[in-house]
């Protein structure tokens, strides 16, 4: 009798232990996905029962961690070059053509705080002397940083702005530099600009897409994964029309 009464507790403990023992799907995600991915991971778990966790860093940092054996199952980069590097090193698998899988395209925006005492963000703001500090992501390690530098070169403004750049480790940190008011403008990802906090605190200007090479964001399956099936399911989920529409609402351009 007493055992029966405790049965649900035992069952609960057993269930919890089993749940804890199952390793989640580990997603290495480019920093521009930080505002976008959490609800998608929750929906994925709701739809499939697979728990997924994400780590957000610059694409270069994640690439070098994966090359050195970091236990990720999927890598969502902010461009094609970093996942391609993993494919070339046989550390990851993309589409059948040996290329990463396009899951979205990124958009670069110029963002300023409302209380920065600057004119509305525009190309003229970049040209003028009002700007003291422009936050960008590291062009070597973050595709958005590379796009920012390319855009400044296209505008012929790189030389004049170079000494006024504050370089962040990744694009989320670039957004944080300008959101915290320490830099007065930033070339950041539209995904950050569309978060409730940044929407409320400032304004953005979409940089003409002709100014920088398209930010084609590529995904790969990590070769060493023990959860290939779950990882593939996650990629399919990411490419499904519903989720692609959701990406479009959060500042990314759908893949197709």
């Amino acid at each position, binding site marked *: 009798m007493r055992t029966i009464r405790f049965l649900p507790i035992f069952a609960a403990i057993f269930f919890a232990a089993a749940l804890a023992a199952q390793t989640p799907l580990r997603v290495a995600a480019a920093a521009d996905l930080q505002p976008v991915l959490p609800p998608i991971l929750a929906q994925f778990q709701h739809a499939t029962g697979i728990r997924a966790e994400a780590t957000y860093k*610059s694409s*270069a*940092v994640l*690439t*070098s961690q994966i090359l050195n054996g970091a236990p990720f199952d999927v890598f969502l980069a902010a461009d094609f070059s970093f996942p391609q*590097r993993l494919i070339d090193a046989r550390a990851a698998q993309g589409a059948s053509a040996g290329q990463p899988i396009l899951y979205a395209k990124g958009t670069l925006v110029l963002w300023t705080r409302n209380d920065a005492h600057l004119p509305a963000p525009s190309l003229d703001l970049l040209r003028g002397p009002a700007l*003291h*500090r422009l*936050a960008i992501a*590291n062009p*070597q*390690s973050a595709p958005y940083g590379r796009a920012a530098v390319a855009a400044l070169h296209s505008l012929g403004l790189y030389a004049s702005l170079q000494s006024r*750049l*504050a*370089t*962040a*480790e990744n694009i989320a940190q670039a957004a*944080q*530099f300008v959101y*915290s*008011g*320490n*830099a007065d403008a930033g070339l950041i990802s539209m995904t950050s600009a569309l978060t409730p906090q940044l929407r409320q605190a400032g304004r953005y200007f979409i940089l003409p897409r002709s100014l920088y090479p398209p930010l084609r964001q590529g995904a790969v399956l990590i070769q060493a994964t023990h959860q290939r099936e779950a990882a593939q399911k996650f990629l399919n989920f990411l490419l499904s029309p519903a989720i692609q529409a959701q990406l479009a609402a959060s500042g990314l351009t759908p893949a197709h």
Partner: protein
Amino acid sequence: MDWQALALTLRLATVTTAILLAVAMPLAALLVLGRGRWRAALEALATLPLVLPPTVLGFFLLVLLGPRTAIGRAITALLGHPLAFSFSGLVVGSVIYSLPFAVQPLVAGFAAVEPGLVDAARLLGAGPVRLVRTLFVPLARRSILAAAVLTFLHTVGEFGVVLMLGGDIPGSTRTLSIVLYNQVEAFDYAAANRTAAILLALSATALAAIYAGSQLRGGRRA
């Protein structure tokens, strides 16, 4: 090799060490000579940066001392620019971050001074300033050297605060540890090796020098 970053790192470490010795010596004397409850609180406060993640410090400096708070605006008005992304910002961060590395050896050294000597000096009318100048400093020379070297090296090796606060600006906030990080990120492992070797050699040599020095003194004393 990024000589500019090496020079900047050494400059940051030198400025930080100079400021910290000036701050930490009276602080350590206060901790050794002081009585009462505030002493424990002050010591805890002075040790806090040792256990606090550098990200906490970086966050405070970036947000609380940034242009969105009153203190931050005052600093910005004073300096003409925000503390972040500037050499002076890194100095402020380093002084706080390395404080325990200056205070701890000094407290240990000052506390090891014969209490009889301190009492005698006090009876003869020496005030705290005189106590420090004529008693603590000459007798705790080794601890002062240790404090200086540890502060210097800890600042050379500083990374988290610089990453959060620096903005990677060549010549003003791009230190060697950031250069190393960038090189690893750029997959330039050969360059990263060289940078790491310099950091390692710098630290190992300086530490070996103080330990050799203290052995020599210990030998003489015995």
